[in-house]
Each structure stands twice: as structure tokens, then as C-alpha cells.
């Protein structure tokens, strides 16, 4: 399993999760966990996904999700899990 963390930050609007999930489904990315919260009117969502079934390179997915984010009006980042693991776990 190759885990990647997708974060979505921006103004809350209808269909953010739907759009992101549609993209992920089309690219054979499996969602393992979703959590979300609203901080000072800003919608913050984190998804843990498994990308081992995906045919694309990580960089391409990051670019496409970023573009999708622009379309919806939110910021979407996609980072390998290790950076968070390294930083927050001994």
C-alpha cells in the first residue's frame, strides 16, 4: 500500500468532496479515511488514500488535483504520507 495525504482547504461550497472523490475514483485511487473540519469559516479536509492502483505519476496527480482545486476555488495539495509521519512520529 502506498499512502498519500490529500488536503483541501478553502471556502466551503457544495460538492467539494464529490468532485475530489470522482477524480480519485476515475484514477483508481482508494480512499482509506476522510476527516474534515471547519476552521474560521474555512473548510479543511484531509483524505488518506492508497495510490498503489493508480497508473499516473505522483507529480501528475498533484498537478491535476491542483488544477481541479482552482476550478472549485479551493487549494488541493497531495503529499506522500512520509513527510507527516517523519515530522510527527519518532
Amino acid at each position: 500500500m502506498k499512502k498519500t495525504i490529500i488536503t483541501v482547504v478553502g471556502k466551503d461550497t457544495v460538492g467539494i468532496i464529490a468532485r475530489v472523490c470522482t477524480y480519485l475514483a476515475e484514477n483508481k485511487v482508494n480512499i482509506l479515511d476522510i476527516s474534515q473540519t471547519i476552521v474560521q469559516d474555512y473548510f479543511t479536509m484531509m483524505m488518506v488514500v492508497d495510490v498503489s492502483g493508480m497508473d499516473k505519476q505522483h507529480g501528475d496527480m498533484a498537478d491535476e488535483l491542483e488544477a481541479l482545486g482552482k476550478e472549485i476555488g479551493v487549494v488541493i495539495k497531495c503529499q506522500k504520507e512520509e513527510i507527516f509521519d517523519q515530522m510527527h512520529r519518532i
Partner: protein
Amino acid sequence: MINIYEVAETNKMIEKENLDVRTITLGISLLDCIDSDINKVNEKIYHKIYEAAKDLVKTGEEISKEFGIPIVNKRISVTPIALVGGAACKTVEDFASIAKTLDKVAHEVGVNFIGGYSALVSKGMTPADELLIRSIPLALSGTERVCSSVNLGSTKTGINMDAVKLMGEIIKETAEYTKEQDSLGCAKLVVFCNAPDDNPFMAGAFHGVTEADKIINVGVSGPGVVKTALEKVRGENFEVLCETIKKTAFKVTRVGQLVAQEASKMLNVPFGIVDLSLAPTPAIGDSVADILCEIGLEYAGAPGTTAALALLNDQVKKGGVMASSYVGGLSGAFIPVSEDQGMIDAVLAGALTLEKLEAMTCVCSVGLDMIAIPGDTKATTISGIIADEMAIGMVNQKTTAVRLIPVVGKGVGETVEFGGLLGYAPIMPVNQFSCDAFVNRGGRIPAPIHSFKN
């Protein structure tokens, strides 16, 4: 599993607090490029570096995208050129032709600096060492990306005062050769005491002879992250302050370790070290001086600055050491003047002088860094300042360095603009009293005693 708050914290560090990996530096040994024919030397150097580094920039960008962390610089360090070119170079032009080759290959592989136009002369100079040193003004004025460094002393050997004297003259000459660009050449020239073999930071990076054929060294940064963390503990005691710095340094360094390992894997080059450093940039919020202010000083340079810097430097190391499997390089807080907005403000406010900076270098990494001084400063005065700084390194068994820029045609009160990461600097006054007789003595200062410590 990682939770949403941890993810948000990491991303806030990256987006708002300028957390980045400052440099991935690929060290390349050029010892196998030695030849008695200068054209062959240049050809071998070009091919070796090109082959080793052609994927460096691409790999750096890929890693940056995978983890969502900026990797600001991709650089190369090579074996000190005085050793590589010694057999072939008979004139300063011969040595400068190697600098041109380094510059050319740096452009072609896309790195922004290549370090190692260097000589190690802590005890004595060979004719090749001296020739390389004399070629530095020509080499730096004829190239864009080449960085030069000279090791003038060490705790074990003492200080080579002949070389110190020569470097005072060479720094002046380099300033003169590059006077059209505000003496920019001097920003790419640094002298050391106890120079490390595995430093990833410019301008002092070179690939030491004790190193493997190729190695990946990474320099981390994050003054903004430390500053933001300290904002939350205002008014707390030193225990809380130090714990906060340590925890933050741990997190910052882990990112460096991760990037180093990934780069090592992707380039198939062994991982050398992580350099635990707080390296500022001219960007607002990316300043070491701002951390000192957050610790409780009105400006960097106020009484208490040396103590504040000492504790900062020590806590960064304590936090960082556990975060990385191999630590090396310079490892500590950098206090360059032109590359740190808080330091520039302190100089402009009159809070920070050259003498206070010298005191600060006793307790943190590097030394008198990126300091613009009047262009009419005498060569012997520059040598005197270098000798003082070398003495601090020699006696305290630490690395110290000097990167002064005597800006031709400018004096105290004026400002010099280097651009980019090198920033801008107000020209600082220099003590006007002479040290001519001291510098002109010649010879070397013996190594200090290693017992009877007081």
C-alpha cells in the same frame, strides 16, 4: 494514523512560515580527473560532473512535488581544485579555465552554484595552492556560478598567516575585478578555519578528500518556523523556551532527513549528512535575527544577544541530532547580514556592529558572513579581521569563516544590492586603526595547547 491537525501544522509551516529544504548538494570527487594536460583535465571534469549531476535538478523537483516541500537550491560541491589542477596548471589562466568549465557544467545541469574552487592551506601552501588563490579574482569575475573557499587554519595546525595576508589582498582584488556588479565576486568567496569536508552550504562547500566518490548532503532551514513557535511561549522561562526550540528543530530536521534519503535513493548516491542549520533568507519572516528578538531583544546586537544566540544554536543542535541519522557540515545558526532582513534592520538602527558580530560568531556556526564594508578598507585590515576570526575558530575548536565584501566606490551609510538569495546590505564601518605590522610579520601562528582549558 496521522491526524488532520498534524497535517495542517506541517502545511502551515511550509506555506506561512517558510519551511523549506535549503539545499540538496551533490558532492563529487574529481580526484580521478587529475592529468598533466590542462585540456584533458577540463574535459574529464566536465564529463564526470555532467554524468553525475544531470538528473540532480529533476530529482530535486520531483521530491519537492511528492512531499509538497520546497527544495530551494540544488548544488554541486567538488574536490578542492588546487588538488585537481595542481599537476596541469602552470598559470593563473590555467586555473581560471577550470573555473570556466565548472561554470559551464553548472549551467548545463541547471544548478545555481558549484563550490570547490578551493585550496586547503591551514599549515602551508604548495605552489599549486598559491597559484589557485592568486587566480581567484580572475576565476570569480569570469564566471557566474562558481564559489571559492580557502581554509586558512585549524585547531590542529594553527593559522597560516602568510595565507591570511594573501587573502586580504585577494579579497580586495576580487572586489576590484567585479566592481561593476558592486564587488559581487566577494560574495562567492569565503575563508575558513576548521573547514568541514561535507558542508552543503555555499559559498564554502567543497567535497573533502576524506569523502566517497559521490555523496548527497542536505541543508535544512526554518528560522520562520522557530520564530512562530516561540511566539506562543512569550514570557515563559528558559526551560520552556529551550524545549520549544528543540521540538521545532526536531521537526524541521526530520524533513531534511527524509529528503536526503529520498534523493540518495533516486540518484543512487550514498547519503552523507544533514546540516542542521537555521539559514535565513532576505524574505520577511525567514530571519534568525527575528528569533533573537522573539527571545527578548529589541534588536539583534543588544546586550544579551550572544547568550540568546548561544542557547538558540545549542537547542537547534540538540533537537536536530536525534532527528537525523548523520549530522555534519556547519550545523548551527547562520548570521549573515545581507541575507537576513532582521540583521539589516539591526545594522540600520545602529544596534549591531562588526565587533558584536564577531562576539556572536564565538557561539554559532560560520562567522562574519556577507558583511559589506567600505571599498577603501586596507588589505591588511581585512587580513586582521580574518586573523581574529580564525583565532576564534582555532581556540574554540569550531568552524569559523569570513565573507567580507569591500564594495569598491562605496562607503559607510551607503547600501549595496546583490539580489536574490544574497540580499542587500548597508555598508558597515570598520575599525580604522592599523594592524600592518602584525599582518606583515609572515609565517604562522602555532596550534593552541589542548590542555589547561580556561
